[in-house]
């Protein structure tokens, strides 16, 4: 469980970034944080993994304030994928990169080697490749793999799909979904509202350092007021579903006014057209 209790944070006294943020994320959730650049999303992620400490309020991991935990204790519980994979890649081969986390935690040995071999197979990496010669999408996958291999109970991802093409995006998100299915808590910052709609089960909207909406994905994505406050645009199918009843009031109670996904909208339109 991750819990924020009335958290305030700033980078110096003049620039306040978070202004009284509270939420709870129970184990096994898949949460997306959305909002404009500068809303405080990345700061919230840094507070979760202890890179930043709150000015006031508390950030608790399983009931313990992060201020009372050592960095290594947090690192074992919380994996963190930076927005730019080059911020975390530091070794000269893929294999060394994947072993790096175990070395940093003092957990080298046959189990670590076996875990690395498994991840190399799962991701289809060339173990001897130089990470810095890989393309952007593969470097992102390697950065993700270096977290997956440690199997932390919580995985935080800051914009995991930025700069990736559609196929790479689906591959990265597929791996993240599988992590969640086997029990990991996923907390992700994401600007791509289609990805949020496809993968997250809960959405927290931030604006100007505060939480302005928090709930099941489509409850939030269908709330134009909260999205508007954060200058966000709903995913396209939701946008259409919200627009149609406004264009023709006979559609207010119809299934097209409730459709959230492509499949739901296609079925709803077929049903409506058949009447």
């Amino acid at each position, binding site marked *: 469980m991750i819990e924020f209790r009335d958290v305030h944070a700033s980078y110096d006294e003049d620039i306040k970034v978070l202004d009284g943020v509270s939420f709870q994320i129970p184990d096994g959730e898949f949460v997306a944080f959305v*909002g*404009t*650049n*500068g809303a405080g999303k990345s700061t919230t992620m840094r507070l979760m993994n202890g890179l930043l400490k709150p000015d006031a309020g508390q950030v608790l991991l399983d009931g313990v304030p992060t201020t009372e935990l050592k960095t290594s204790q947090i690192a074992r519980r919380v994996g963190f994928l930076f*927005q730019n994979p080059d911020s975390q890649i530091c070794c000269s081969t893929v294999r060394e990169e994947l072993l790096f986390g175990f070395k940093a935690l003092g957990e080298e040995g046959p189990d670590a080697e076996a875990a690395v071999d498994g991840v190399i197979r799962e991701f289809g990496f060339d173990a001897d490749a130089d990470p810095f010669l890989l*393309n*952007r*999408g593969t470097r992102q996958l390697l950065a993700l793999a270096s977290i997956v291999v440690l199997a932390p109970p919580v995985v935080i991802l800051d*914009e995991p799909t*930025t*700069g*990736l*093409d*559609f*196929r*790479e995006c689906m591959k990265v998100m597929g791996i993240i979904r599988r992590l969640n299915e086997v029990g990991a808590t996923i907390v992700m910052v994401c*600007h791509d*509202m*289609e990805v949020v709609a496809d993968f997250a089960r809960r959405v927290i909207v931030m604006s100007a350092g505060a939480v302005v909406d928090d709930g099941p994905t489509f409850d939030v994505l269908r709330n134009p007021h909260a999205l508007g406050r954060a*200058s*966000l*645009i709903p*995913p*396209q*199918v939701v*946008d*259409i579903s919200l*627009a*149609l009843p406004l*264009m*023709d009031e006979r*559609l207010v109670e*119809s299934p*097209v006014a409730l459709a959230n996904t*492509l499949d739901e*909208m*296609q079925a709803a*339109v*077929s049903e*409506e*057209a058949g009447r």
Partner: protein
Amino acid sequence: MIHIQDFTFRYRESERPVVEGVTLDIPAGVFAGITGAAGSGKSTLTYAMNGIIPHCYPGDFYGTVTVDGVDTCTATLTDLSRAVGSVCQDIDSQIVTSIVEDEVLYGLENFGVPHDRIEARVTEALEAMGIADLRERAIASLSGGQKQKVAIASVLALHPKVLVLDEPTAELDPASSRQVFELLAAYARDNGTTVVVVEQKIALLSEFADVLIIVDGGRIRFAAPPREVLAHSEELLELGVNCPRSTTLMNRLANAGLYTGPVCCDVREASEALLEVVA
């Protein structure tokens, strides 16, 4: 404005050409969007347009690339940069000063723009990108979106005939991404500037581009108005290009025999078309 004929390029260190047999015409004043999977050759095409290829990256160059009637192989990079303004994928690698105003001044001074015209050019460029209020700000204190706009403004100040931008909205939120496209389109329309944008956000390209160019394996698979290209949503998906959901929805309904109208490029078009389908 941009004429590419039988262009093939192989980087010195790579075994095979990254771009192969490309022929492409982008007339003056056109807003062209380029997309495709990673490694398909999109950025290499833009390097050919702004002269980075062949002047900075050595390799085997076949065919011809002319911009505003000038052969990019024979012109110097300095002369090309007067016609073509470029914004890189990595904004931090492009920014050289620490204050917004200095960043916009830098190019103007390097190009020898007379001192009495510089003030107006700086103001005009900052206003065109909607960041006049950031003029005195330290660049290090700006958000990613604001930095992106500073980089574009510093190129607009030079009054290029062609603007080449490589993923200018990669790190921006949806509202800022849309705003950058709106500002670019308005500037291009008012000044007759030719714009070439490489972008993964296909919904924005579909809405703003006059021509949508799909690159796959170093070759151009489609180069046509977005409406024509998006009609091929299944084929595009195989090339790693996902159409906007509004387009996919209407294409699916067309395949199911429920919709017979033109391809829809955005939410507004799809909503209006759907109203008729369910009427």
